[in-house]
């Protein structure tokens, strides 16, 4: 039996199909995955993402710790509440995890890390935090609910505790605000506007039910996957892992090599950049009927590669995916789908943002 979130019983009562995800029993969907997907693109949907782990880092050395641990530069976080997406790397440049880091004050940052990697992340962070006197506090006492879609913020705002409401209303994109044990951030994993709300576990069911009563659709991990893929967002373990660097994973934009800052993995990335990356991660649009799936082989003029994530895009009504290929690959490629080669076109993600297609079909 897997671990359960504070909302487990509510998921079952709503008829969810439960699956294992990173050691947790999570809802994959409540009915039609495509309807859940459209709810987020067109209106508002909510996800239980309590399996992800919030981690508070506290102490005077916290910024110095993250300057060293993260490939993206937390030195750029000047305004309290500002958040940043980053990879955390091994010395050889492999990705330990991708995460969100939020700057709250000079003695407090909050990270949100993936469920399946939380234990190894915590061990890695603690090892480095110890030397610098920073406390590492995993917040398993919190549930996390993501409310996403064009109407998500408007539906969520009236349901927040009074103290958090005003701060939430003023949040810019990629900012967060804390109020007692509630933490609201304007972030997400769908390519839509919205909030992610961390709150005490005992308050989660009431908040979830109130959102449902306000017309926010329950959405499972299935819809979360089609939404993030349309938005061109990587999934750790599928699109990158410890054997790939951010530079080979479409995440060069999250790596700050400039300047004197010496983060773990920097030398390896500099060497890779100097030599030229051998492979890249990019988007793929299937030109015929069928569905791209992870691990399908891809053939390009520059050599072979593999689909790392693939699905049917409900917004585009076509199959899309992410693919790792030799860096020189370009134009049209062929994908081995169940023994037959189908043409597909390389495209630059995202495929969809804020409800609108971003690529030519």
């Amino acid at each position, binding site marked *: 039996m897997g671990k359960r979130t504070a909302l487990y019983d509510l998921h079952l009562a709503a008829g969810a199909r439960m699956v294992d995800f990173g050691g947790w029993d999570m809802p994959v*969907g409540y009915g*039609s*995955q*495509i309807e859940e997907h459209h709810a987020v693109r067109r209106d508002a949907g909510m996800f239980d993402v309590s399996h992800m782990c919030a981690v508070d880092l506290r102490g005077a050395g916290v910024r110095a710790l993250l300057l060293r641990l993260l490939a993206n530069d937390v030195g750029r976080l000047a305004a309290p509440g500002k958040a940043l997406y980053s990879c955390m790397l091994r010395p050889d440049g492999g990705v330990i995890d991708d995460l969100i880091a939020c700057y709250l004050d000079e003695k407090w940052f909050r990270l949100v890390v993936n469920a399946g990697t939380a234990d190894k992340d915590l061990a890695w962070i603690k090892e480095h935090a110890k030397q610098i006197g920073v406390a590492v506090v995993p917040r398993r006492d919190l549930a996390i609910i993501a409310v996403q879609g064009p109407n998500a913020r408007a539906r969520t705002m009236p349901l927040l505790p009074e103290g958090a409401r005003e701060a939430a209303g003023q949040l810019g994109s990629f900012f967060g605000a804390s109020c007692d044990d509630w933490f609201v951030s304007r972030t997400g994993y769908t390519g839509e506007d919205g909030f992610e709300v961390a709150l005490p576990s005992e308050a989660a069911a009431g908040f979830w039910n109130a959102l449902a009563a306000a017309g926010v659709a329950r959405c499972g991990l*299935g819809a979360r996957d*089609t939404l993030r893929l349309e938005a061109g967002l990587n999934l750790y373990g599928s699109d990158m892992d410890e054997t790939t660097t951010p530079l080979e994973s479409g995440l060069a934009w999250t790596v700050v090599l400039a300047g004197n800052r010496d983060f773990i993995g920097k030398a390896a990335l500099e060497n890779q950049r100097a030599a030229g990356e051998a492979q890249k991660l990019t988007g793929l649009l299937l030109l015929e*009927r*069928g*569905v791209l*799936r992870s691990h399908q082989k891809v053939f390009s003029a520059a050599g072979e590669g593999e689909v790392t994530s693939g*699905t*049917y895009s*409900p917004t585009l009504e076509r199959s899309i995916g992410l693919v790792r290929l030799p860096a020189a690959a370009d134009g049209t490629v062929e994908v081995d789908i*169940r023994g037959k080669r189908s043409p597909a076109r390389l495209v630059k993600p995202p495929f969809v943002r804020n409800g609108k297609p971003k690529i030519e079909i």
Partner: protein
Amino acid sequence: MSQIPADLRYTRSHEWMRTLPDGTVEIGITDHAQQSLGDLVFVEVPEAGRQLKAGDACAVVESVKAASDVYSPLTGEVVAGNPGLATEPELINKDPFGEGWILRLKPSGGGAAAESLDAAAYEAVVAAGG
């Protein structure tokens, strides 16, 4: 709970069979199967005239989640594939035992028919997690 009409025959691989008045057999996938697959987005049906042996993969149903083969429960000749599924694969989700039929087959009688189950036996297969 999924529906299991009492007047149909079933297979362990979640196909159903309905014998039509002219002796041809209509074949589809069960309500349980479509629920497991989720929203169907692509269905490949066999062409009329194709000769099938019992147990042959005869169609592909692909959902957002996964692709799955459909196996012919009988030996015979394909009379028709459901043309509606090319543009409306969701017919299988909406009406798996009716408009969502996949193919019609004229049994040849030759070759061993795959094991077929009545509704009660099929219900037991589903209940056992098959």
